[in-house]
């Protein structure tokens, strides 16, 4: 595998607004890469720069080894599915989908054949003569996808292509898109703010936060080993604790938090460092009596039944809520009872605090 899209030190300013900050990203050929992040973090802007619709303020973007700005849009093997569909309102669905091929002067019979194929693929057969205004949001999105895919691009950029679909159709289209991507062997750069969608579809996820690429990795890496507090909280549910390191020995760490002591594993931390500890609800356990190493006490507040899982919500002494997953059918303490949460040391993710790093740097600066 070689990289087909490469971003090196890309920055984008809109006036004073620094929207994309020093972005380095290399997309492998044939992979499904997702840009994930909350609204306004610069995902669309990044995609538009790759498509060549927006120029980076600094840095370079290479597609197929060539700088984006060196090629006119129509010379690129890149197509885009726009966040707002951007279907041509005065053209029928057939003409919308055929547009790219018509521009490439593909013979009419071949166009007809390929349009028919792709319309079957996105389940729009029978809609040929309709106009975009006569379609539902979901149908429009499928037209937008078909219109881009029919050109058989090497790279397809998709900006929240499933945003307007209901849950069922969305799940179905997720699988469909993934299948298409494998079958056609097209590199997908996919934008979404839905972490579940990102986790199920992607080969790799790039989590963006305020224009910064927080973490790049496989869905497992992103989920199991988040590298920042934002990634930990944004992807899946988690419990966040913050406190100073009390003891550390051979990577085993005890952290003093507001109302007790918790434990975790990790290297590269120092005594007294103020760190963040993230524990997924499914890793949380509890017992009626205190567990060795932990000093944590909570009161069971409520249970929420979600299919095969029971979500237990408990309150710490300082009022902070924690979430714990239990399997349905397990015996559970009554709401109101006192429990002692704990977890396997290896299941906690320990994170440095960025503000802390700055403080440390200031500390280590020689006094003038």
């Amino acid at each position, binding site marked *: 595998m070689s990289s087909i899209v490469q971003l090196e030190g890309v920055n984008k300013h809109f006036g004073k607004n620094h929207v994309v900050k020093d972005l380095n990203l290399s997309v492998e050929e044939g992979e499904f890469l997702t840009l994930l992040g909350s609204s306004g973090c610069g995902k669309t802007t990044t995609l538009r720069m790759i*498509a060549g*619709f927006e120029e980076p303020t600094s840095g370079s973007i290479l597609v197929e080894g060539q700088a984006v700005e060196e090629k*006119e*849009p*129509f010379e690129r093997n*890149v*197509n*885009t599915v*726009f966040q*707002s569909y*951007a*279907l*041509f*309102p*005065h053209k029928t669905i057939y003409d919308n989908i055929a*547009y*790219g091929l018509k*521009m*490439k002067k593909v013979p009419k019979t071949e166009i007809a054949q390929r349009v028919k194929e792709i319309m079957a693929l996105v389940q729009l057969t029978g809609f040929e003569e309709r106009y975009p205004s006569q379609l539902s949001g979901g149908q429009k999105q499928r037209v937008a996808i078909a*219109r*881009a895919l029919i*050109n058989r691009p090497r790279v397809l950029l998709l900006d929240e292509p499933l945003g307007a679909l209901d849950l069922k159709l969305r799940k179905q289209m997720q699988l469909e898109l993934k299948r298409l991507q494998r079958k056609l062997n097209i590199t997908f750069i996919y934008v979404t703010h839905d972490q579940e969608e990102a986790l199920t579809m992607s080969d790799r996820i790039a989590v963006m936060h305020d224009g910064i690429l927080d973490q790049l990795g496989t869905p497992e890496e992103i989920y199991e080993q988040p590298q920042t507090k934002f990634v930990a909280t944004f992807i899946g549910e988690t419990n966040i604790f913050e406190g100073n390191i009390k003891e550390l020995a051979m990577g085993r760490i005890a952290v003093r938090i507001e109302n007790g002591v918790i434990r975790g594993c990790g290297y590269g931390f120092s005594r007294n460092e103020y760190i963040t500890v993230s524990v997924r609800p499914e890793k949380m356990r509890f017992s009626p009596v205190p567990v060795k190493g932990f000093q944590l006490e909570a009161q069971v507040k409520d249970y929420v039944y979600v299919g095969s899982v029971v979500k237990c919500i408990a309150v710490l002494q300082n009022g902070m809520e924690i979430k714990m997953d239990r399997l349905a059918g397990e015996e559970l303490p009554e709401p109101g009872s006192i429990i002692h949460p704990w977890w396997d040391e290896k299941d906690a993710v320990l994170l440095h605090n960025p503000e802390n790093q700055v403080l440390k740097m200031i500390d280590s600066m020689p006094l003038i």
Partner: protein
Amino acid sequence: MEKTKKHSRHSFRSNTLPAVVMTGPMTLLLVLLVAVPLIYVGVMSFCSIDEYYNVVFRFTTANYARLASTDYLKIYGQSLLIAFVTTIICILVGYPFSWLIARTKSKYKKILYMLVIVPFWTNSLIRVYGWRTFLGTNGWLNTALQFLHLTDGPLDFLYNRGTTILGMVYCLLPFMILPLYTSIEKLDQGLLESSADLGAKRAATFFEVVLPLTSGGIFSGSIMIFIPCLGYFFISDILGGGNSDVIGNLIERQFQSGNNWPLGAALSIVLIVITLILVKLYQRMGGSMESLGV
């Protein structure tokens, strides 16, 4: 003439008459201001004149018969030609300009827009006289050309069909720019991007996407230019020569020097009918009346 033109425009309002019946005073006003004069003109077009040029109520269709003579037909044709050429020039000049003011991100957008609007507020008669002063044999242009030794003697710019069309374009251009501006402004930038993204070159994007989506503006602009062109007699009076009469000139002449009011009335009716046909055609092609501001 101005009055006749008003009739022609307001007569479409009578489409909505049934609804207007509910609002009594409004109806009365409309009847007095629109229907009565229109009927008056219609009746007069079938009247005759005596030897002292007085209108007498003797029914005749002679007025209309006269209007079917080749002399008159030639002028209708000429008037339609002038209107057509004016409209085309307005499209060609107005489109790029509208594009510029609709699409520019510059802070001068407002100023550009005002440049179009301000002439609206100034009397067009004065502005057309301005052109005569500018283009005349002793006008600024000739003076400047001679001063720069580009020409030896004064050139004849005035009094031909070209200057009439120039005057028409000059007076009516805002009517093209404003609807075009609106339709270009409404055009979604994303469509241009997706067209480019799908492999269209600039020209293809223009003909496939931009032009069809702004044709509404071109249509309404055209109709708002074409119709007044048939009636703007003062422009050909001031700037035009012998071969630049429009239908408006004929009407004006019959009411003034010709002193044949019934014939003038018949001409007015002809103009109204032509206007009606054009508007019907416009509606048939999918144009909306709202975008005409009617």
